[in-house]
Structures are given as structure tokens and as C-alpha cells.
């Protein structure tokens, strides 16, 4: 107990001269620079005790599954270790390389991910710029509040809405028939899956996506606009030369993140929306490995597919980050 009190008192530092928070982040000179682990534990064991449960959480629920990917190269028998039973080398990798259903899912993933990137990524920027032109703060806040709403909905609710709107007698078909067209059976036609997915994705994410851009917009120096006005720049020129460059770092960071999650196209949503009739466009890698691994119980095979998907994602994010670092100087780390 005595050592504890000693430890506790040594926490006390002389007050920092300035109360500004930024000064706190600089290392204090009056503290010993290095401490051994023994000293650190003796002094801060209560703080370290706070770390125990979270570290167990990370070890068990985050790092064990990462190690569990080793079953991609080992045979797995139900009920045995999560690391599999015996080495089989690249057996399962060869298996999916020769699997036409996998390649179909692979290309669907690439197309859907690419479309999402091209269609969904720019829209929040446009919306943020549009919101930025509003002068009435109340109107702006109302539009924002409404556009965020879908973000708070469960994906199951979103899927339910999609089914309802595209039903045989749903609103979309009512519009089509009233314009003289024939009602469309949306979920029996593979051609319609991508438009439906993208539309619902835009509906759900576009408003929420504006948050970071709007935050970035507020940091742009008003004086830049004033100077531009004096130089005779109109609103378009101001947007082009000041606003867009001002939010460019945000755009790049979000673009890199989007590229990184490119292969992981909305798994839950696709799973909820797909059905066997439209697998030719609606089956993506993650839903395919779900069926293989969980419905059909081919754990090792599905793990090999999942590992491949994760490696592509990792490669994409690393290269996007490296390219962006070289070319525009912005990066995630």
C-alpha cells in the first residue's frame, strides 16, 4: 500500500504554466524520460488493470480470427481446433481459382464495388457544396437532419423498404405503369440488381457522407473568399479555386478508405437483397463465401476465399495510400 501512495503522489506534476490544452501534449521535462516496465507497473498498475479486459477482447475476438485464417491452408474438421488439423498447402486456393462460381462472384464484386465508388463517392461532395450555398441556417439544418435519417436505420429496414417500393404493385411500378410502361419484376431480373443496390446505397449514405465535408468546409478561411471576390471571381470560380482545394485532403482520405473497402461491398445488404434467380449479378465474394462456408460448411475453402478478398482489399488500400502520398502528399498514415 505504501508503494501505491508513493506511486500516486508521483503522478502529481507542477501545474503547466499555460492552461491551453495544446501545451499538454508536449512531453514534460521534469519527468524521467525512460521507465522500466517494473517501475511503470508499480506506479500505474491501476491504469494497467483497465487495459486487461479490453486486451482480452482484442486478443480473442480480433486477433484469434486473424490467426484463424490459417485454416485456408489446413484441413478443418467440425469440432476440432479453430486452426484446423493438417496442412494441405494451396489445395483450397487452387480450388477457388478453378471455380467458375467464384469468378462470377469476383467480377460481380469488382463491378459493384467500382460502380459504388464512381456513383456513391462523389455525391456527398456535391451535396455538401449544395448545402454550403444555402444562406438560411434553419433550412440547411433541416435538410441535413432529414438526409442523415436513413443512416440510423437497420439494414433490414432498408431492405424491407426496397422490397416494398419495388413490389409488383409498389410505388415504382405504379409510376412505370402510369407512364405507360409495363410493371417490372425487379427481383426476378438480374439486370435490375445493380441499379437497385446503388440507388438504395445512395439513399442510405449520401446525407451522412456530407458530415466530414461540411466540417472541412467550415475550416476554410473566409478571407480567401473575400480576396477572390475583390479579384473579381464569381461563385463558380470561388468554388473551383477555393472551396474544392479546401476540402481536398478530406476527399483524398475518404477516397483511400473507399478504395480499401472496395471489395467488401455491402455484404449484409447484398445478402438481404439477393435471391438465387439473380445470382448472376447479385452474388459477390462475401455472399458466396457465406454460402460456401456457413450454409455448405466448407470452412477451409471459404476461409481461403475470404483471405484472398482481404488481401485484395489490403493491397488496394496500401497502393492507394502510397500513390496519394507520392502525387498529392495526403495519406492515411
Amino acid at each position, binding site marked *: 500500500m505504501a508503494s501505491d501512495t508513493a506511486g500516486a503522489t508521483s503522478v502529481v506534476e507542477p501545474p503547466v504554466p499555460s492552461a491551453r490544452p495544446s501545451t499538454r501534449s508536449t512531453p514534460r521535462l521534469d519527468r524521467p524520460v525512460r521507465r522500466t516496465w517494473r517501475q511503470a507497473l508499480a506506479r500505474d498498475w491501476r491504469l494497467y488493470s483497465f487495459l486487461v479486459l479490453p486486451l482480452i477482447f482484442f486478443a480473442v475476438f480480433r486477433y484469434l480470427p486473424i*490467426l484463424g485464417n490459417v485454416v485456408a491452408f489446413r484441413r478443418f474438421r467440425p469440432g476440432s481446433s479453430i486452426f484446423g488439423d493438417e496442412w494441405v498447402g494451396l489445395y483450397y486456393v487452387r480450388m477457388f481459382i478453378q471455380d467458375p462460381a467464384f469468378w462470377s462472384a469476383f467480377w460481380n464484386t469488382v463491378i459493384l464495388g467500382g460502380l459504388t465508388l464512381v456513383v456513391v463517392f462523389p455525391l456527398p461532395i456535391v451535396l455538401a457544396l449544395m448545402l454550403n450555398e444555402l444562406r438560411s441556417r434553419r433550412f440547411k439544418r433541416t435538410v441535413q437532419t432529414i438526409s442523415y435519417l436513413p443512416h440510423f436505420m437497420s439494414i433490414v429496414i432498408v431492405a424491407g423498404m426496397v422490397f416494398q417500393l419495388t413490389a409488383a404493385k409498389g410505388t415504382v411500378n405504379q409510376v412505370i405503369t402510369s407512364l405507360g410502361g409495363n410493371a417490372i419484376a425487379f427481383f426476378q431480373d438480374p439486370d435490375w440488381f445493380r441499379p437497385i443496390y446503388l440507388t438504395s446505397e445512395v439513399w442510405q449514405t449520401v446525407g451522412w457522407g456530407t458530415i466530414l465535408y461540411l466540417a472541412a468546409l467550415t475550416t476554410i478561411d473566409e478571407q480567401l473568399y473575400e480576396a477572390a471576390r475583390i479579384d473579381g471571381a464569381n461563385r463558380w470560380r470561388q468554388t473551383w479555386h477555393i472551396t474544392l482545394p479546401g476540402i481536398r485532403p478530406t476527399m483524398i482520405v475518404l477516397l483511400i478508405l473507399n478504395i480499401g473497402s472496395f471489395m467488401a461491398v455491402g455484404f449484409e445488404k447484398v445478402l438481404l437483397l439477393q435471391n438465387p434467380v439473380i445470382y448472376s449479378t447479385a452474388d459477390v465474394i*462475401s455472399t458466396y463465401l457465406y454460402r460456401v462456408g456457413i450454409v455448405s460448411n466448407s470452412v477451409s475453402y471459404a476461409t481461403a476465399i475470404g483471405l484472398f478478398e482481404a488481401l485484395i482489399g489490403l493491397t488496394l488500400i496500401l497502393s492507394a495510400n502510397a500513390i496519394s502520398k507520392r502525387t498529392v502528399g495526403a495519406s492515411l498514415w
Partner: protein
Amino acid sequence: MTRGVRPRDSAGYTAFRVVNAALLLAMCALVLYPFVNIVAQAFSSEGYINSGQVNLVPRGFNLTTFHVVLSDDMFWVNYKNTVVYTVVGTVIAMALTTTYAYALSKKHLKGRTFFIGVAVLTMFFNGGLIPNYVLINTLGFKDTIWAIVLPNAISVFNLLVMKSFFENFPDELEEAAAIDGMSTYGIFFRIVIPLSKAVLATMVLFYAVAFWNSWFSAYLYMTDPHNYPVTVYLRNLMAGVTSGTTVTGGNLDNATQIASNVQSVTMLLTVLPIVCLYPFIQRYFVSGVMLGAVKQ
């Protein structure tokens, strides 16, 4: 494009502002429409839904479907499960996230960078669906609440938001308490926690909404329908796995259309708590996300 250089708006810019406002209003209408449509269908009678006449306003107003859904025992069991999963999940998540974030916020903590790295790395790597599934089964969590609440106990994003909040916490208060002989535990529970209500409330909302809305872990790990949350109940309704309730008991000719009526009611009841809380919680979320974005 336009050449208006005047300090006041040019004609072109005024026209743009009108179009801009109109487009934003149209967007709001499109965002809200699906919600309005659910409400309209939920209160409509089957005949009108069958013939596709329900869009914005309920036709043939009735509450029959509400009675049908609310008298289904399984709906109540599943709704109660959602509440339990949300509460237990949020409590566990808050306990783990707050303590970890607090310890990480102490700059003198030896190994701090490592402990931050342990968390942040999991934002970029994860084990993937199948290894997680095998793990949960191996741990024997199948058909227990632990399969839902434990694997999602820490969101690294929330963790970083809290960490940056604690980093900006006034040191002087903690120092004063330490001088008075309070231990780290005392400082944490009696000084830091009570003074962090705003950020704690935000985090509770983040976690609670996430647990309320989640369906996939339950879908994956729950085999007994008595363990489903209401989202899985709804999903099965949509997939036609269950007919929902005893709707088919009457002399109904088109079971699928009636199902859509039941679906609307279930959807409405599922989103009800969130929509009711939404006006109050929305700005917390926004400021939380901004804090997280700025501080990362």
C-alpha cells in the same frame, strides 16, 4: 461560366440558388418517401394495398394488422430480446471502451503506443467471416447472448473519440484529486466519469443504435427463434421463412400482399424507438463523428 462580378448576387447566381434550394427540397422528399410509404401501408386495409393504391396516405384506415402483429407472442419475445441485447451489449461495450480509452489517454503510460496500435490495427485487418464464425462456435456462444454482445464490445472508432476526449480533460482536476490522496480508480469513477456525461451519452447512443439495428450476428448464431432479435424476425418475414403471424387464418386470397402489410407494421414498430429519439440524438452523433474525424 457566369460573369457576374458584382458584390451582390448576379442573375445567374440567384437562379442557381433557386434551383439549388429546389433540388435539396426534392432530395428531402425522396429521402422521406419510403418512411411515409411504410406508415401509409401499415394503417391501410389489405384491399387497397393489393390493388396498389397506397402511397402517401393510408387507404381504408384500420388497425387490424397492428392487432395481428402485437398479438403474436414471438414478436414480443423477439422485441424483448432486442431490448435485452441492446442494454447488455451497450453496458459491456461502454465498460470496455471507457476504461481502455481512459488508460490510453494517459500520455505517461508506458507501452501506450503499442496499446493504441493493438486497437487501430484491427480497423484495417480483420479475421473475416468464417474464422469468426468458427471461433464463436468453438467458444460455445451459439444460441447465447454472448455471441451478439461480446464480439462487438469495442468499436475502435468510438474508442478513439473517447480517447481524444479524455486527453483534453482538464489535468488540474485529476491532479488536485491525486493530491487529496485519491487513487486512479477514485479519480476515474468519482471525477472523470461524472464530468464526462456528454461524451458518455454520445457513446451510449452510438452503441445502442448499433446493437438495436444489428441482425447478422443473431442470424448467424441463433438457431432457436426464441433468441432472435426483432430484426431477424423482420428479415424472416421478408424472406417468407415464417408467414409472420397467423394472418393466413382468415379468408385472404393473396397471402404475399398481406405479408407486406404485416411487414410494414413490423418495420414501423422496429424503427419506432429510433425515429422517436432521432431528433434528440442526431446532433450528438454528428458532433461525435466530427470529433472522431478531427482527432484521428
